């Protein structure tokens, strides 16, 4: 085999310019895939990270039926004390894969600055649990947060920046929240504005934060009640696996009607951004298809030319006793060599390009999150998969010319001028 590859390399070097041009084309294709995958995957992962680390968590648990009516922020679908305990047991049991979780009460309310009133969507949290689950939430809060674990205190409220600006509210001002509890009675609570928060997804954001104990006072909740649990995983890449495990365990908990008590959703189920993430994946696949086409056509072309130019030579080696299978391998080895060498060079240039992008310190914005550093990276498994694709396609594309060469009749090949 070593000798076959030695001969293949020599034959490739025989037509230096042609080999170089073909190789350059394949190298460009490999670099394109690596750089595009590295940048777009990093971009996608950062976007997903921004959503999961500052808002959604990786997974969310609600009472069955809550998500289908989530726009109404219903309070009659709260989890009660017993259900919270059951859920807590499952989450603690899986603490090897779950890093943190946060209990939330989401509800709608009217916000008044004593002059004007507007509606607001509030998330009531335990600050320490929320910060552990969504550690980048505090990055969106204006002002100095010396203790992120206590980013919202009782008696205070964090308001969305645009809404506060519109109502001319600033930190330190007093506001009143008015909300219906699940029985329909209206209650009010006076709070002090602690800070303003940037909306993640743009100007229409109306999400504020209060302490969970204030929500209980406002909504007159006795005991322990929540309507959302956000979960942060130790390894986000393991999302599907953990989702499956938790879904299995949660499905065992059924109510009196023999229906599941809980519903579990991944961040992708809850965010329209998952579609954009899927489009990014589709684009990467498209670029890979382009690479396959480049490799297929260029190697097929160069190998066909090679066979037609060396008909007499094929006749010679066949006449002196080279088996058709070895002639096949001689030509296949040329295609493989071209693919392997181009892939190695393409990988090196591609990875170096990604390193250069990182060195260039490129920043971008996502929604209201500014100055996000583009940290490109590509997994070794992606490099291996790109390399295997190129080498496999190189083999496939050289198969036809190689078969043609191996099936040549020596008498006709030797007659060829």
């Amino acid at each position, binding site marked *: 085999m070593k000798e076959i590859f030695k001969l293949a390399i020599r034959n490739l070097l025989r037509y230096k310019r042609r080999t170089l041009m073909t190789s350059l084309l394949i190298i460009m294709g490999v670099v394109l895939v690596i750089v595009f995958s590295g940048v777009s995957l990093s971009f996608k992962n950062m976007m997903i990270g921004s959503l999961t680390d500052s808002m959604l968590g990786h997974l969310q648990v609600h009472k069955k039926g809550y998500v289908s009516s989530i726009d109404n922020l219903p309070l009659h679908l709260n989890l009660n004390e017993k259900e919270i305990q059951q859920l807590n047991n499952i989450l603690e049991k899986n603490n090897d894969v779950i890093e943190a979780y946060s209990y939330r009460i989401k509800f709608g309310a009217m916000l008044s600055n004593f002059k004007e009133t507007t509606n607001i969507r509030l998330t009531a949290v335990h600050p320490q649990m929320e910060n552990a689950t969504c550690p980048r939430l505090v990055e969106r809060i204006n002002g100095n947060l010396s203790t992120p674990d206590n980013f919202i205190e009782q008696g205070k409220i964090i308001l969305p920046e645009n809404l506060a600006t519109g109502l001319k509210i600033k930190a330190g001002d007093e506001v009143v929240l008015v909300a219906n509890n699940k029985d329909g009675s209206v209650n009010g609570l006076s709070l002090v504005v602690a800070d303003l928060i940037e909306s993640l997804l743009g100007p229409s954001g109306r999400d504020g934060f209060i302490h969970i104990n204030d929500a209980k006072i406002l909504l007159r909740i006795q005991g322990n009640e929540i309507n959302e649990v956000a979960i942060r995983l130790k390894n986000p890449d393991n999302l599907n696996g953990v989702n499956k495990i938790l879904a299995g365990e949660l499905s065992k908990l059924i109510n009196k009607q023999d229906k599941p008590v809980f519903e579990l959703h991944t961040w992708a189920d809850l965010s329209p951004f998952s579609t954009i993430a899927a489009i990014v994946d589709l684009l990467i696949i498209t670029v890979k298809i382009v690479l396959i086409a480049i490799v297929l056509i260029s190697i097929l072309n160069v190998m066909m030319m090679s066979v037609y130019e060396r008909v007499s030579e094929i006749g010679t080696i066949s006449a002196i006793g080279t088996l058709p299978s070895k002639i096949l391998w001689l030509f296949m080895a040329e295609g493989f060599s071209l693919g392997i060498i181009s892939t190695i060079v393409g990988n090196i240039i591609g990875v170096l390009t990604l390193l250069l992008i990182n060195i260039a310190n490129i920043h971008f914005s996502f929604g209201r999150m500014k100055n996000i550093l583009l940290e490109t990276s590509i997994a070794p498994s992606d490099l291996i998969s790109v390399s295997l694709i190129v080498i496999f396609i190189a083999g496939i594309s050289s198969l036809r010319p190689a078969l043609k060469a191996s099936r040549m009749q020596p*008498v006709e090949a030797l007659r060829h001028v």
Partner: protein
Amino acid sequence: MSLVELKQVTKEYQMGELSVQALKNIDLGIEKQSFVSFVGPSGSGKTTMLNLIGCIDKPSSGEVFVNDTTVNDFSNKQAAQFRGQHLGFIFQNFNLLPVLTAYENVEYPLIMVQNIPAKRRRERIMHYLEAVGMADQKDKYPSQLSGGQKQRVAVARALVLDPKLVLADEPTANLDHASALKVIELMRSMQKDFKTTFIFSTHDPKIVKEAEIIFTLEDGEIVDKQNSPSQDHEKTV
């Protein structure tokens, strides 16, 4: 039995709607360790004859025996195996692989045909390169060698697998007279030294003289078989 035997061999080529008989009912036998030449004008059937004996082509009818084996029904693979085991080839255009040095060209059949280990290869290659007087040129590529030198390397390549029979189609056609004579002398000495049978075709009368047995072909038929000048001469039609 003769090393090579042809019985009622005919070879027809289809050229469009025309059927051309390149060989017509040929009967012949060639003994081991002989130095045989086919002569005749272009189109007389010399190359076809060598191709049939060399298992490169198949007869339209009749039987071809080489080394006690019927070779006419070989598959491509069987023919290649047989050629690699029993036959050596020398071509008019030398047909050395341009990307390999003289040494590597001689090495090629040892690797690709008989898969002989590296240690044994070197010894054998140098033996044959020395025998053809090309040991000092072993690292040169074909493009750096003269026509005569290339054909010497081709002779070494043909002999390196110790074939029973070497077939040479117009081996001197692309050489000047002096080089041509040297190549024929080399082939003759190789035939004696290695006890190999050589069959070559030529239309050069000065070269023909070197053969022990000369078959003259005309229009696909053997019209004359002549032993070397010291031997008998018989006319066949």
